[in-house]
């Protein structure tokens, strides 16, 4: 009774249909972004989902390189699908900051902003006259974050190209992901980029709290490879204490037992049970209550010993062979152990649960129509995250931004366009321009 009562209350508190009836936590925070690909643009995007106003600055013409990176080269309505997940609710400005007049516009915008985000090579912004040292002169409260592969300084910071997979390769994540004796596995998603951006945004929020208290801004740097090292739980301490060089162990968790993936008749199922009641429940579900009584499996510490773990996982493996995924999952619910099918994007897209949590988020975009994307996983009862519009074509908000924040007149904006300081999309390569059936107006504010 009590649990139902509580869930009725939480479902009401977090009712997704009321998201737009609630305020935004970061309203009034303005962010200036000079970023490409994922690590950079995702950082302000995570804050923009909570109401921060993000001005995304790209180079006129080709814009963000991610506009070319899209699954199997698929362009949808002339947009790169790869560009979508880290660009929502942003104002799209195409500005050539490499020339002095462009840099001056950037400086004037920075004066009106609370946060600057960039992911260029160390020192590039400085050379253009828009680095932290220059911007803090005109805006002492500015919080400035630089994200990249190997950091702003140090033995690997100069002259090495970095991508997400480089971060995975040098951090130990690659070496510990996959099956023994097989090729080390790249995580199938750009985890170094997205998680790096998430941690970058978290540091911006901590700095914002300090600024709320003192009025002082600061410089923050994050290397995505170093960030992945932070996340590798017990790997380093175990090496330090026992010289254990953590190998690849497939889906088996060396620190929780049982915790693994098992093949059922119709596919794989994830399963775990560390607490004694959960483990007893699992043995019950397997029809083997005696396994829980076996001294080799009597408690978690004993089960974790290598020879015991191997033996136990074998017992579960044999049992799972004769079951379907749904049967195991049902038994998990009944007996209180953890179980789950391996969800695909389709499963999540169609899941009422992910929709109700507004993690799979549907909205109507002025240019692209119905959109379904992944919204912030941090659910705030009073100030929920939201998507308002999708990524836009290159330079679509130039006029609006220059007028609203810098008070420029039409003839000034025209002169900047003629001098190619600002610009719009190019026709080719694809991924920059509006859809073919665009009416020349949709998505333009003014």
């Amino acid at each position, binding site marked *: 009774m009590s649990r139902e009562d509580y869930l009725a209350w939480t479902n009401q508190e977090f009712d997704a249909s009321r998201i737009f009836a609630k305020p935004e936590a970061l309203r009034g925070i303005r962010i200036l972004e000079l970023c490409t690909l994922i690590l950079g643009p995702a950082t302000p995007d995570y804050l923009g989902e909570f109401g921060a106003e993000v001005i995304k600055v790209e180079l006129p013409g080709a814009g963000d390189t991610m506009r070319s990176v899209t699954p199997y080269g698929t362009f949808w309505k002339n947009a790169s699908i790869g560009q979508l997940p880290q660009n929502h609710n942003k104002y799209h400005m195409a500005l050539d900051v490499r020339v002095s007049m462009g840099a001056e516009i950037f400086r004037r915008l920075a004066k009106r902003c609370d946060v600057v985000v960039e992911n260029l090579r*160390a020192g590039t912004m400085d050379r253009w006259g828009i680095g932290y040292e220059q911007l803090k002169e005109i805006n002492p409260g500015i919080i400035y974050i630089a994200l990249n592969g190997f950091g702003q300084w140090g033995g690997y910071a100069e002259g090495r190209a970095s991508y997400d997979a480089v971060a995975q390769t040098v951090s130990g994540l690659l070496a510990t992901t996959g099956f023994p004796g097989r090729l080390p596995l790249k995580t199938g998603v750009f985890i170094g980029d997205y998680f790096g951006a998430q941690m970058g945004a978290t540091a911006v929020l901590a700095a914002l709290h300090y600024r709320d208290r003192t009025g002082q801004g600061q410089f923050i740097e994050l290397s995505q490879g170093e960030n992945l090292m932070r996340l590798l739980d017990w790997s380093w301490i175990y090496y330090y204490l026992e010289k254990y060089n953590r190998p690849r162990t497939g889906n088996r968790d060396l620190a929780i037992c049982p915790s693994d993936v098992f093949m059922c008749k119709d596919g794989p199922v994830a399963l775990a049970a560390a607490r004694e009641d959960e483990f007893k429940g699992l043995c019950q579900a397997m029809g083997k209550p005696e396994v829980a009584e076996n001294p080799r499996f009597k408690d978690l510490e004993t089960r974790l010993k290598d020879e015991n773990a191997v033996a136990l996982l074998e017992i579960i493996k044999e049992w799972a062979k004769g079951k379907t995924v749904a049967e195991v999952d049902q038994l998990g619910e009944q007996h209180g152990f953890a179980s789950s099918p391996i969800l695909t994007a389709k499963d999540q897209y169609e899941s009422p649960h992910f929709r109700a949590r507004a993690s799979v988020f549907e909205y109507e975009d002025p240019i692209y129509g119905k959109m379904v994307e992944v919204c912030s996983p941090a659910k705030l009862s009073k100030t929920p995250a939201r998507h308002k519009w999708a990524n836009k074509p290159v330079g679509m908000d130039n006029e609006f931004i220059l007028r609203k924040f810098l008070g420029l007149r039409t003839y000034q904006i025209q002169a900047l366009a003629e001098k190619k300081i600002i610009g719009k999309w190019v026709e080719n390569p694809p991924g920059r321009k509006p859809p073919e059936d665009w009416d020349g107006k949709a998505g333009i504010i003014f």
Partner: protein
Amino acid sequence: MEIPKITTVLPFEDFPVETDRTWVDWVHDAGDPRKNHLKAEALDDILVLDVSEGNIGALFGSSILGEFGADVIRIEPPGGDIARKFSPFGYMYKGTGLGYLMEGRNKFHITLNLKTPEGQEAFRRLAAQADVVIEAFKPGVMDEWGLSYRFLREINPRLIYASLYTYGHFGPEAGCGKPDYDICDQARSGVMAVTGEPEENGEPQAWNVPTKEGNWMGWYAGGGWTAFGILTALHYRHITGEGQMVDVAPPDAELRFCDYHIQYYHTVQQVRGLVGAYDSAVFPYTIVKTKDGFSFLAGFSDVNWEGLTNIMKDPELRAKFPTIFDRLNKANQPIIHKEIEKWSVNYTGDEILDMVQDYVLNRRGPGTVATAPMTDIKETFEDEVWWDRGVFDKGTDPYYGDVAFQCPPWKMTLTPARVKWMCRPVGGDNEYIFMKYLGIGKEKLKELEKANIV
């Protein structure tokens, strides 16, 4: 009379002297992690109660807040959190497993039996004084004890209350009753549906299955987003004075890291399968065997592909797959991968890195190629560059002694995150915390211990 010179340098603070002022010099000096302890802390006005059990994700969330300076009180049941047992092969270091040891940093560790009315009352008193509560029970457990957000907001309207659970605290599956483990968080996030070696020749092998990331990435994603949500709510509280509830499901958390997963399905109704060494958006962008291990290699755009095939001295391969569409073609990727590997196995990872750096830095031809030899845990940990960058550190913990650990990943000029101590034993801070926040002295504490309340 000579005035004695006052030193501002304490033992072991031998910082390098500033030389010529380039950006790199400036930022190295201004963000040097070795000077962290001289600077202020961003969150040292915040009190956090982490009452989670058996959940490394929640521990990581409170670690972030603690690294930024918050006072974090870890509340465990008498006997200790089961997460203290999550350790490789059951290895214990001075009574605590390594997973917990790493995320016990900067926290005060106390015990409290929340199943007793006295324990609940003590928790309520702490919550009345706290800024943040983090819990990781199944939905309804804290509620049954009268300690869920709907009760605590009555006594502390400024409170930010964060929950973390695989299925979340709302949504149709929230009440399913299954516990939260990293493997299921990863399974539900979508990351496993694309991580793994695809089948070759139609004969499935044991390793042709969705595969988890080696670490507890599902839990860490959940914890990262919990800290993010709390800090977002904290800013809103600064403006309005109002607290709120933050709910994070780790699978949602890692789904936000799963590329264009959902967008790809929405726009063209396609799902990606296991990618293995291949890729759906950039190729070659791959892992290959080398003479002495494995290396990452990328040359995706036409010009970079030209660079890579120049380095390989293989213009025929270039001509065979001239456009990005040829190279992204699912059927072609295994062929290209095999051809690159035929070449790469003749060299060590470092030799390939030297060839690539020579080509790129000396502009021997068009294109930028990226490569990195894979380092394992030992090699990464022993690399002096990371120690210089402050990624790893070791120190003498008052209780655990000589330990090494990974540091917070950020460098900041004003309020950098830092590690002050590693962990504490079960109930190690009972005396201090009960005295400081509850006015309970040693004698009373002993009585509570006898009654199994602490």
